[in-house]
């Protein structure tokens, strides 16, 4: 198992390096103008631009620039480890930007993931067990709504109704946990719900289909024939087997949302990693985008690893060597 983990870890590092390289290449080749101009004022001079080029290593060839970035990333810069450089937008340390914004995104994703996993699987199971009843139809209707409703619309509507009209929650913006759990929760509950709604719908449909398929298997019939209770048949033998694909997609969804919950973060003014990536992309701020890309790539790799380990728990046939 340890050997397996070490091998996966090495692969993770390689994947992150490749992703960094590709991102670097894309931004370097984009006709986005000279980043030094952003720090040279409204009336730059050749001398001031040369100074900034030197400072940002922009006077070096692409591969040397990339080398500097990898070196700083590995050994750290004046802001500590990992060294992620400074934003081309405002000259703020990207590391500090990531540290400031990561908890926002992680709380958002963790809360939403908990909701969609619990409700998605529960609705899926209910729907499968009560197949072709009104409960199944209502559940699948809800799933259809969740998939169809755009997140930005749901977000704005929920803010309008729940915050502005009813005053039930704290509205938009992020309140750190240090300001009190009540205020934090009050500001997170709407984004959690809105973000989770889409995934609840997807997970409910997935769970329902997988469970129905599993419940049609021979070993389920055998279990029933043995006289096991329906509860045991469904939860111990049916659900556990049908959860493997859910675990795969769950891991990937969480990882992708680390840098990808842009709309939710924008509508609810959470300003997490997705917002940083979005802003960085539209302002062609390479260091900020790279920072988020590294986070997302790392999250994808780590979650893949976690999923693989969870497989072993869900499916006794899986063993790692």
């Amino acid at each position, binding site marked *: 198992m340890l050997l397996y983990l070490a091998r996966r870890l090495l692969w993770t590092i390689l994947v992150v390096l490749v992703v960094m390289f590709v991102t670097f290449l894309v931004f370097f080749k984009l*006709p*986005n*103008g*000279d980043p*030094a*101009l*952003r*720090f*040279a*004022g*409204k*009336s*730059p*001079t*050749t*001398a*001031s*631009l040369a*100074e*900034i080029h030197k*400072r940002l290593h922009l006077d070096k060839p692409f591969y040397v620039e990339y080398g500097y970035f990898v070196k700083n990333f590995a050994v750290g810069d*004046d802001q500590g480890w990992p060294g992620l450089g*400074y934003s081309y*937008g*405002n*000259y*703020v*340390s990207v590391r*500090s*930007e990531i540290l*400031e*914004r990561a908890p926002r995104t992680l709380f958002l994703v963790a809360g939403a993931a908990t909701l969609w996993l619990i409700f998605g699987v529960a609705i899926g199971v209910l729907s499968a067990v009560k197949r072709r009843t009104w409960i199944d139809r209502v559940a699948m209707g809800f799933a259809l709504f969740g998939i169809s409703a755009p997140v930005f619309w749901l977000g*704005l509507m929920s*803010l309008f109704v729940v915050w*502005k009209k009813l005053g039930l929650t704290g*509205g*938009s*913006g992020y309140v750190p946990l240090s300001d009190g759990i009540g205020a934090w929760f009050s500001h997170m509950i709407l984004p959690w719900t809105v973000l989770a709604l889409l995934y609840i719908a997807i997970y409910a449909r997935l769970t329902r289909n997988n469970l129905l398929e599993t419940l049609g298997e021979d070993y389920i019939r055998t279990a029933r024939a043995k006289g096991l209770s329906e509860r045991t048949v469904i939860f111990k033998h049916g659900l556990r087997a049908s959860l493997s694909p859910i675990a795969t997609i769950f891991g990937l969804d969480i990882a992708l949302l680390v840098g990808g919950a842009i709309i939710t*973060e*924008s*509508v609810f*003014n*959470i*300003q997490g990693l997705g*917002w940083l990536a979005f*802003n960085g992309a*539209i302002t*062609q701020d390479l260091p900020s985008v790279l920072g988020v890309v590294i986070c997302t790539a790392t999250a994808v790799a780590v979650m893949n690893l976690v999923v693989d380990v969870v497989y072993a728990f869900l499916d006794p046939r899986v063993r790692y060597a």
Partner: protein
Amino acid sequence: MKKPFGRLVALAGVVAAIVVATAAGATAHSNKASSIKSGGTLNVGWEQSFGFTDNMDPTGEYLGDAFGILDNLLVRTLVGYTHNADGPGNAIVADIATTVPKPTNGGLTYTFKIKQGVKFSPPVNRQVTSADFVTALEREANPKDGAQYAFYYKPIKGWDAYAAGKAKSISGIKTPDASTIVFTLTTPTGDFLKRLAMPAAGPMPVEVTKCFEGQPGKYTADLISTAGYMIKGIDEVDISSCANIKPAAGYDGQTILDVVRNPNYVKSTDPTRKNYVDEVKFMVNASNVDIYNKIESGQLDMATSSIPPAVLKKYATSSSKKQYFHQNSGDRTWYITMNLTQAPFDDIHVRRAMNYIVDKDALRQGWGGPTVGDIANHLVPDALFGGQLKSYNPYKTPGNHGSAALAMKAMKGSKYSTGNSGMCDAAACKNVLLVSDTRGVDPGMVATLQQDAKKIGITFKVRQINGAYPTIQTPSKNVPISERPGWGKDYADALTFFLPLFDGRTIIANGNTNYSLVGVTPAQCKTLKIGGNCTGVPSVDTQLDKCSVQIDPARTTCYENLDKYLMTNVVPWVPWMWSKVTRITSSNVTHYQFDQFATTPAYAMISVK
């Protein structure tokens, strides 16, 4: 392209008509002395990101909105402004200096005496001395500290030698004692006092800034204030050694800037700032819709943000909302730049014809109509000339809609107009490259220009670029025309327009701001790889040198004449709008005031319930 634009213009026209008809007179609501009170917190929303150019480090920071914060709340200078709107807001007054000095020695020497009682905020806690100004200006001169407008201080004797590392100090700055500072210039500089009023020239304590040498954008969260406020938590920062200095909690560079009262501030030393509120919080918000919802509900009090059209209309037209709607001159010109080296704009007849043909009113309607700004009739906003060029309009057309007849008359004599037809009918007039941006307003602007130029025979090949500036700032790209540019003043002097925009000597390969290439020489064209016609390009370098040494009122007259000369004899632009700054405040704001220097709210002069 025509039809959708027609609808767009019609729609914009209806919106603008409604806005104008009902919003007439909805301008600044301020100076209600009776409603002013001290205390409370001013909450300011900030759209998307602070957008600071140097993370608010006064040495390099060049964003106008940052000037508003630094100048009102954190950084006092030898001389400064009254934090008022319009003309009075641009007048220089003594701040840390005891008086505004008159230059001596033929305009070459300025001597300042420093007031006693002006202290640095915690944790420095000491009187500001003349040496602290030297510290700030040496940081400005040192290229490694990231200065972005160091060129304004180049007239100081010894500046260049210090910047080049050839001298250990700036020889033109002397401090005979702790409360006296003497500047010696190499050439008379009529606006030198205004240059000293910029935040980079405010005093800095060397015991802190030494820790940020060679680190641009780092003297920020630990900025030591001299004004009425300080960054929250700065009093808890340990400055006993550089290693111990940690960023104050009130500024994270990304989401919040929180300033609170500076306990070391002595009001009697400051004649201008009122400092009504106890605390000012600037909070970044991802959505302008959310910002204005919060302003309406009172969770925010104002914003540095684009205003959604529906919100603008609501506040401009509703009688109950008008009191929260504030408009002031932005001292910014929006213009169409024409490249003097590129056909057909290398012919002054064509450039003049363009000035006659463009429907400036339609361009403005596309931006939201008269609410957004005034039609520009010449280069520099009238406000910078004290309104003395208000009636000057060399390319006047009925209703500012453009005139084909006048344009065709101006075109006659052009080498691109065969047989004096008044039409630009040469091959060079077809498919002329027009560089545009991807802002919401750009498609409408491009359609207007295409429609207008076609009337005099010019057609465009449009290239929309997300972020067009880098392209038009590169002379070797040979961009003939672009509708993207806008330029705002740095301080209230026409030099801040003319020098960067028309000085041929400052044209550079990358980041060039003289987009029209006024004054470019054939030798420069060769070096900078500029194609096109580089011979005989008109230059105003001599006039620029002549004006820059003048002192008012001769200075203003000199620049007025230069503006007229450029408009008629060079014609590098089609100036079309002088934009206004619009701010919407919440019902919590009991007194609003505009700072004309920074063209931002005068945060030190605003009071809340």
